[in-house]
């Protein structure tokens, strides 16, 4: 197997600079990292260390100022806006601290949402969403609206949505940030289980007790990788 195929994510000298008034702020300052397939990597750092920016760049929501990033072998710099949208619907799945589900849709429709933009027919979308909810122990909640769900259930639904496209990598940005400790622990257990099933996971957190579950921990500070 070539390195191309064994690497889920590869970045080289990633830099992201913002203008804040007259001063420029470097959110990322030369980040080089690789995530192999099947790995569970946690990126740790205090707030403002650039860890969310790193995740957004890998997700194709943000373009780096310099350096490059490859996800599943694809160089994101070569993609236009529509190409990046395709990247988000096929190669990566995102889980946010704020869940970001659409309250007016049923849970199953929320989970199936990314498949709409990938052009998957309705029947297949629903079948895949239901199968995934079943796997995550959420099948009883499939027909509910999101406002009838608890925080832990919302985040499980969000993970189902992130996984429905069969992404090369699951990107989780502080997924336990809005959960109590019991639900947080359950969620990490779920990520662990998914990883053991072969899912590559890149988790961003400032919480060391959560990062411990990852196979590898990277520390980020002021936009730079430590050690």
């Amino acid at each position, binding site marked *: 197997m070539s390195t191309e195929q064994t690497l889920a994510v590869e970045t080289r000298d990633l830099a992201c600079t913002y203008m804040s008034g007259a001063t420029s702020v470097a959110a990322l300052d030369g980040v080089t990292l690789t995530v192999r397939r099947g790995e569970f990597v946690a990126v740790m750092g205090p707030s403002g260390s650039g860890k969310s920016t790193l995740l957004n760049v890998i*997700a194709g*929501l943000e373009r780096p100022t310099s350096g490059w990033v490859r996800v599943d072998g694809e160089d994101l710099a070569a993609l236009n806006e529509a190409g990046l*949208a*395709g990247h988000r*619907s*096929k190669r990566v799945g995102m889980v946010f601290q704020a869940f970001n589900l659409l309250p*007016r849709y049923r849970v199953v429709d929320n989970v199936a949402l990314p498949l709409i933009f990938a*052009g998957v027919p*309705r029947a297949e979308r629903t079948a895949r969403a239901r199968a995934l909810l079943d796997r995550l122990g959420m099948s009883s909640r499939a027909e509910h609206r999101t406002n009838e769900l608890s925080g832990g259930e919302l985040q499980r639904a969000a993970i189902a949505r992130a996984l429905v496209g069969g992404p090369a990598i699951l990107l989780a940005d502080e997924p336990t940030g809005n959960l109590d400790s019991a639900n947080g622990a359950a969620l990490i257990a779920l990520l662990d289980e998914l990883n053991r099933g072969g899912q590559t996971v890149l988790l961003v957190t400032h919480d060391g007790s959560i990062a411990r579950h990852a196979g590898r921990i990277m520390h980020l500070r002021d936009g730079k990788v430590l050690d």
Partner: protein
Amino acid sequence: MRLGDLAAMSLGNYARSRLRSALTTAGVAIGTALVVLLIALATGAENNVRRSIFSIGDLRLVTVQPFQPGANGLSAVPRTIDDGVVSQFRKIGHVAGVYRQFDAPLGQVVEGGDDAAIRPQGIEPNAPIDRGDLLAGRHLALGDRGVAVIPGNIARLVAPNVTAAIGKLVTLRIGGAVRLGSTRVGGSGTPRDYPVTIVGVFDEAASQTSVRIPLEDALVAGADNRGLTADSLRQQTGYSGIAIEADDSTNVAEIVRSVQELGYSSFSLKQVVEQIDQGFGVFRGILAGIGGVALLVAAIGIANTMVMSVLERTREIGILKAVGAAPGDVRALFLAEAAYVGIVGGVLGLLLGYLGGQVIERIIRELNPRTNPAPIFVVGPDLVLGALGLAILVALVAGFLPARRAMRMSALSALRYE
């Protein structure tokens, strides 16, 4: 994104904020209804006028008058039409027939009494005015002399009915004074009597006083009246008018131009119809413009609603983009939502405009039962399609900028939007 999904998803968005969508749609419906109503009114009026013109005459006909066209219609100068000119008319392209006419002095059918005053028209066989309007007998034919085709009202003065008039020998007294209605007209010259056989009776709807006689007879009567010979009359006075028939109505304008180049003024219904068409085009344009203003107001309403909708759904747009919606998908979603406003508003507006026209028409007929029976409002298939297309177009144009705004929104800042 599949078209079916786009349609279903945007329909959901359209139906979600019911009151707001309903109000915006109502705006489009009212604008469309006004456009439909006003154009239907203009079309009805135009149809009415055109119908009455078509019943008057043939659109292939160009009538040449013995005048030289002046700078305006009032300053026309008399100009003789002799046989030389007629042969020039025959050479004009696309001319299917040239028919000379000579009007003899006013006269009377003696057997009909004082009410039988006539205008004898000397015409050639198959002249456009002597076609297809017979009540009995036949039209003038080649080689006829001493015959006449007379209107039904005069036939009934000289015989019990129109059929009985056929073959009857009557006396045309041409020249001198005649009574027209209640007034006596001092005619020209000394009256002379000419015996003629009635060969045909035409429907007096065309004319109650015209008597159609062979051209040569009319020329002789005219010459007798003025103490000339028929040939010198042809040269000096010329014909009263020439009817030129085009091979097709589309060539009428060309023939009219040629006649004018020869120095004669002419008249054609076709040109009148064209002028009427032009006039109605302007009329219709003005009415459509009034309706258009209503649609413009509706468009501003749509744009406003869409801007609000984009703003309200900022976070949703961010989520859609984060899970893989392409910029074009987002734009399509909002444009499709605007299109729904146009489609629903357009259909409702069509119904409203059509039914409104029916109601107004009924009220008008109720108030004035003697109103012309032709429809006042005419909604044709082109108006239906046009109005619907216009409503959708207006909605799409109004939705374009808000949709573009949604498309260009950064996914990250949209996700952070509260």
